[in-house]
């Protein structure tokens, strides 16, 4: 076994790379005994550094001479012939970078990546060749010459073998679209193999969720049209029979869990159409119930056995022992301002608890619902032992507040200072703080609101609101001023129900009433300042709080305030809303019923107490444009009672996602009535509950400022003295 000893090692041909660097890569010291194999490995190591075009060595007596030829360094990278994809986008795909070493294999890899990018854009016959121009000093310019090839659009999509659903209906399900009028804008009408695979899955999901358990896309054949400038795509499908559910049973292989405890919570029942989503919802319900019963490591396995004779699917939910895993640590990263406990308190599981994937998914949803993060990824990785799991929470913070300070000069009333500071995540503690101040002549507002969601470290939201408002309203001939101070508490009382309790101290005053204002208001103003205390409660219930993501969801809110002191009254308000998604989850339908009733047992309501239906409650009317009115002074008097039904639909307009624009339609049907008093000499019109109806369309636009909603409404049945309004711009609020 021949071995060598070198007393000197020299390197020739290296220009930029330091000799020291090459020697460290070689790894052989002077005077060290080296076998032929070690020598070869060492030279191989230098080659592996990827810095040299070729490396060879020869031995002259005791000296080892290493001759290297460096790859040139890249001076500039440029792209020629690209129009559909911009140079910046291409630059991100390419791994070779300026000022680093040019490596031919890397260049060809980059070329393939560019070709793939074009294929995704529908240009499947694009070609890309990397070429380089030599520069002085062993430098080179790398140029990617691109030939994009003709756009290949899809002329027609057709289906073979479908009888249950027509071609038109199936086309709406697909992600790929036929080239229509908006050919230039809509990108999805170009042929792209990846998108066709997505379509195969969309079709399968569509059919399976309507009972066709055996549905299969046999094949998709793609042919060029006679003119060879576009494609015809044909989906050959095999629908199979439509199955309904047979008997649905629940069995358990776990000694500590018996099936009876889960019986009544199943929704899928005999005779239903087979639908994977509703089965999954059942699985979620069973797992939640297992959690409630304190059973650990329970996994629900829905086993479906086919009975082709009767076209029935028998379903057995089998409770099985899941993997015994424990949460070792929950590590939260990326929270630059938010405190760790604000994110950690969204987890109901604690370190050391059994690992339950569903509970972790729910916690991730709660973290995102905080609204403090533009992105919140929760994923798991192996811990320090096989049965230990570490939960990694990576969040990216986003701005959560706004502050504005301005002075505006109204024409008649001089300078008005306007300042507002809103923060949802105050000092990173999850507290919300709001402060607005405006000292205009026509209206002065000072409002302060603060809420701590985790009072005493519990799921107990403590809030305090303080506001003083002095208005000289433009639609009535009198001034009002009111002050309100209200601390409140809110806490969960069941999995989906929350109760709030509050105390409120209010002060109202009506003053310098114009002499041709309504006599009723003059009489009310004569009562002067009024202080009143009230205590109240509110109960809210939201079906989505149990973590079962179902297509339809319900919400309910009922509140009552009991006033005592100068006047005693009960103000009750209720709101019930239901929402569902149809047409493969693209269209949202929502129905909301809202009402309020103010009942005075001692004293009477005043215009500052009564309801005025703003556009958030019923659309299509100017401020005070609906409800009881003084016949001769035409002053709106407000009402002690209101009720409204809002039917809404939201649907995409087919524009690409990034525009953030979607459409909507609505119908509002409701009324405001009952001034609650008679004043001689004043005839009150529309004091009784005459229903008004308004319909309209709206445009939703999510802007960096927030989700805006443009409402265009037309009255259907309104009273002739109502003041309607055709257009309004509001912030769109989700239920």
């Amino acid at each position, binding site marked *: 076994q021949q071995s060598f000893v070198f007393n000197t090692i020299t390197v020739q041909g290296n220009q*930029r790379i330091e000799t020291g660097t090459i020697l460290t890569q070689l790894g052989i010291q002077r005077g060290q005994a080296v076998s032929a194999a070690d020598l070869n490995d060492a030279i191989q190591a230098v080659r592996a550094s990827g810095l040299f075009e070729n490396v060879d060595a020869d031995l002259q007596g005791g000296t080892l001479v290493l001759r290297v030829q460096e790859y040139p360094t890249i001076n500039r990278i440029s792209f020629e012939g690209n129009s559909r994809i911009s140079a910046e986008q291409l630059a991100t795909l390419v791994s070779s970078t300026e000022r680093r070493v040019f490596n031919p294999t890397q260049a060809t890899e980059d070329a393939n990546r560019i070709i793939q990018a074009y294929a995704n854009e529908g240009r499947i016959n694009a070609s890309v060749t990397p070429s380089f121009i030599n520069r002085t000093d062993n430098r080179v310019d790398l140029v990617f010459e691109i030939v994009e090839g003709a756009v290949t659009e899809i002329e027609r999509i057709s289906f073979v073998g479908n009888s249950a659903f027509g071609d038109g209906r199936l086309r709406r399900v697909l992600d790929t679209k036929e080239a229509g009028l908006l050919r230039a804008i809509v990108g999805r009408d170009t042929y792209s193999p990846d998108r066709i695979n997505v379509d195969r899955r969309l079709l399968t999901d569509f059919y399976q969720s309507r009972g066709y358990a055996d549905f299969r896309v046999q094949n998709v054949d793609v042919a060029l049209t006679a003119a060879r400038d576009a494609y015809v795509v044909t989906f050959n499908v095999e629908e199979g029979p439509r199955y309904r559910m047979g008997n649905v049973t629940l069995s358990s292989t776990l000694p500590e869990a018996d099936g009876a405890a889960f019986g009544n919570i199943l929704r899928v029942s005999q005779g239903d159409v087979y639908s994977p989503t509703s089965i999954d919802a059942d699985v979620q319900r069973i797992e939640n119930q297992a959690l409630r019963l304190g059973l650990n490591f329970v996994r629900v396995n829905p086993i479906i056995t086919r009975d082709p004779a009767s076209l029935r699917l028998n379903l057995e939910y089998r409770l099985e022992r899941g993997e015994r895993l424990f949460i070792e640590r929950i590590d939260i990263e990326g929270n630059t301002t938010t405190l*760790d406990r604000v994110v*950690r308190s969204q987890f109901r599981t604690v370190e050391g608890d059994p690992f339950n994937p569903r509970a972790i998914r729910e916690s991730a949803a709660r973290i995102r619902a905080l609204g403090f993060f533009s992105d919140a990824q929760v994923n798991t990785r192996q811990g320090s032992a096989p049965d230990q799991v570490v939960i990694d929470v990576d969040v990216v913070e986003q701005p959560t507040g706004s502050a504005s300070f301005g002075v505006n000069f109204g024409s008649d009333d001089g300078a008005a200072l306007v300042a507002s500071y809103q923060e949802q995540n105050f000092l990173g503690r999850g507290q919300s703080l709001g402060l607005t101040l405006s000292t205009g002549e026509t209206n002065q507002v000072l409002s302060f609101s603060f809420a701590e969601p985790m009072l005493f470290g519990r799921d107990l939201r403590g809030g305090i609101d303080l506001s003083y408002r002095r208005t000289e309203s433009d639609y009535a001939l009198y001034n009002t001023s009111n002050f309100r101070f209200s601390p409140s508490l809110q806490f969960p009382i069941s999995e989906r129900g929350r109760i709030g309790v509050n105390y409120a101290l209010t002060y109202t005053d009506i003053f310098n009433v114009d002499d041709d204002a309504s006599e009723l208001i003059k009489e009310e103003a004569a009562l002067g300042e009024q202080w009143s205390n009230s205590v109240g409660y509110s109960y809210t219930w939201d079906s989505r709080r149990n973590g079962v993501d179902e297509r339809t969801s319900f919400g309910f809110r009922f509140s009552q305030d009991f006033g005592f002191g100068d006047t005693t009254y009960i103000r009750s308000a209720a709101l019930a809303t239901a929402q569902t998604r149809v047409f493969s989850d693209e269209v949202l339908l929502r129905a909301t019923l809202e009402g309020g009733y103010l009942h005075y047992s001692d004293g009477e309501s005043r215009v500052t107490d009564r309801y005025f239906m703003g556009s958030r409650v019923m659309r299509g009317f100017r401020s005070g444009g609906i409800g009881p009115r003084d016949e001769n002074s035409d002053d709106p008097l407000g009402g002690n009672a209101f009720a409204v039904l809002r039917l809404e639909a939201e649907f995409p307009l087919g524009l690409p996602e990034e525009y953030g624009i979607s459409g909507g339609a609505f119908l509002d049907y409701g009324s405001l009535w009952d001034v609650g008093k008679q004043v001689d000499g004043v005839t009150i019109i529309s004091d009784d509950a005459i229903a008004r109806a308004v319909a309209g369309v709206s445009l939703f636009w999510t802007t960096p400022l927030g989700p805006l909603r443009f409402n265009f409404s037309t009255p259907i049945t309104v009273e002739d003295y109502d003041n309607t309004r055709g257009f309004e711009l509001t912030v769109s609020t989700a239920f």
Partner: protein
Amino acid sequence: CSSNESSVLRQPGALDAYSAEQVFDLGEQQLNENRLDDAAFFFGEIERLYPYSSWARRGLIMQAFAYHRARDYENSRSAAQRYVDFYPTDEDAAYAQYLLALSYYDQIDDIGRDQGVTFRALQELRRVIELYPDSEYATAAVQKFDLAFDHLAGKEMEVGRYYLSRGNFTAAISRFRVVVEDFQTTTYTPEALMRLVEAYMALGLTDEARSAAAILGHNYQSTPFYADAYALLTGRGLSPEASGDNWLVAIYRQVVRGEWM
């Protein structure tokens, strides 16, 4: 040269006629006039135009320095990384590695609670200490290493206190044990030992509490934490009334001052 002149020189090809040394001087000039971004650009151009000159190497380290002073940590990091890759044995390599470590370390104070960046800072600082032990940056790196290490321990303590105050004693014990075992050199160890005494006592494991208090007494006798732990062990711990914390004071302390214990 004034700022508009430097923008003229930034047009592609404007510097081709300049020699490496001239471009280097241009860069230094910008640096002195605190136009850091321009300075970094010029130092980068040397590397592109004359990659084999010794100026290119000096330009690269100056580029890393300029970006770092401009708090542009991303670019400073990539320039320092390139220097360490190409010139690992050069006399400025230690400074390049140190700049690389600082690009993470300096982000710690404005990233507050984030743990990921602290971890990277520790890795790079360790490389400075191990690869260049006798460079003048090794001592500064050791001192910054301890501060970053302390910061990581602070995060473990914060989570431990969270679970302790909510009564999840086993989770708290695991976190405080991590501090006692992996972070003994930090300033948090005495408090971690006291918290362990509290947690074991809460679970009723008095002999575990006593052994934790023994370690605390042996190593940190003079700290106030030992006094608290000793009082707890000998049954003279704070009685509920003595802590004088009615709900109004509790709200003020937790909501306004943000203290949670």
